[in-house]
């Protein structure tokens, strides 16, 4: 039995919703990515984009069910998004220090990028927004719904 068939059997939904979600999800995801990448010169940025990306997963979860969706996404990918985001963000901060500047002093990347200083800063910001913020937000916000929906049972070690 293929993965998608199993999902469909476990969680039946009206075909209209299923279809709508399938069509909508890529667009929502694209919109999220768009918002993430276009924070520099118009409203938006990593936070809003990250949330919208996570919303895609919400959409899937509400349509196909939480359990199958969380299996599909996989806890490892969420952990990698969240922890990886922190590592990238802090890493950029420490990298600028290694280059002789202060924490998050993007201008120091002039040493390795052949660009005018304000462009360098811009790329530094983009890196932080996309690799750091959007990743963390997307990872954690997805995880929050799965964790909350998973609940907390007495079987999980609650003392009487």
């Amino acid at each position, binding site marked *: 039995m293929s993965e998608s068939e199993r999902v469909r059997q476990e969680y039946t939904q009206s075909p209209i919703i299923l279809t709508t979600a399938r069509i909508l999800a890529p667009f929502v995801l694209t919109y999220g990515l768009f918002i993430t990448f276009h924070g*520099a010169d118009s*409203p938006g940025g990593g936070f809003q984009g990250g949330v919208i990306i996570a919303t895609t997963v919400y959409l899937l979860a509400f349509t196909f069910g939480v359990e199958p969706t969380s299996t599909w996404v996989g806890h490892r990918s969420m*952990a990698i998004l969240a922890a990886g985001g922190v590592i990238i963000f802090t890493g950029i901060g420490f990298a600028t220090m290694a280059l002789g500047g202060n924490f998050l002093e993007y201008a120091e990347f002039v040493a390795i990028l052949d660009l005018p200083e304000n*462009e360098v800063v811009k790329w530094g910001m983009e890196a932080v927004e996309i690799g750091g*913020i959007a990743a*963390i937000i997307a990872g954690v916000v997805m995880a929050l719904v799965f*964790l909350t*929906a998973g609940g907390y049972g007495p079987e*999980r070690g609650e003392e009487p």
Partner: protein
Amino acid sequence: MSVSLVEVSLAAFVILAAIGTAIFRDVMAAIVVFAAYSLGMAVLYTLMLAPDVAMTEAAIGAGVTTILLIVTIAKTNRSSAEELIEVIHWPAVVVAGTFTAVVAWTVFEFPTIGSDEAIAWSNPSVTQHYLTYTYVETGVTNAVTAVLAAYRGFDTFGEAVVVFAVGVAVLVVLDREVFT
């Protein structure tokens, strides 16, 4: 600043929505009204020239918060609602009323809304610096992004860490080791 009708009606809307959230006994109703309140706020933010904030409030305040609240209610139970409205707790009304009065009293000392003499706007080394040099120094034109990721990137770093912290904090609270 002259007060526009849009503004007044929005203000009235958010206050009414807030009161509704406070007094509806049914939690689900309170959540729905609170979502409406958030959207009203988002519109108000747009009116106040803060599109970034409005977008975030719509996505996070109205979006994520509402979803989390609904999931929580689904995992627990809706408060049984024989009555529509909560019993009013008068001592708390007095406390909250006093607090409001004190804040309102200080409001008269505030600069008027939108005044370009207000130091918060006119401070040459802070706000005016951002408005003048954002592109020159950071290469972007959205000053909010510049302040967010460059000038005050460290705040944003902290903010991202807050989100990450909640992710792992929830793991600790629910006694789990992975994000499922």
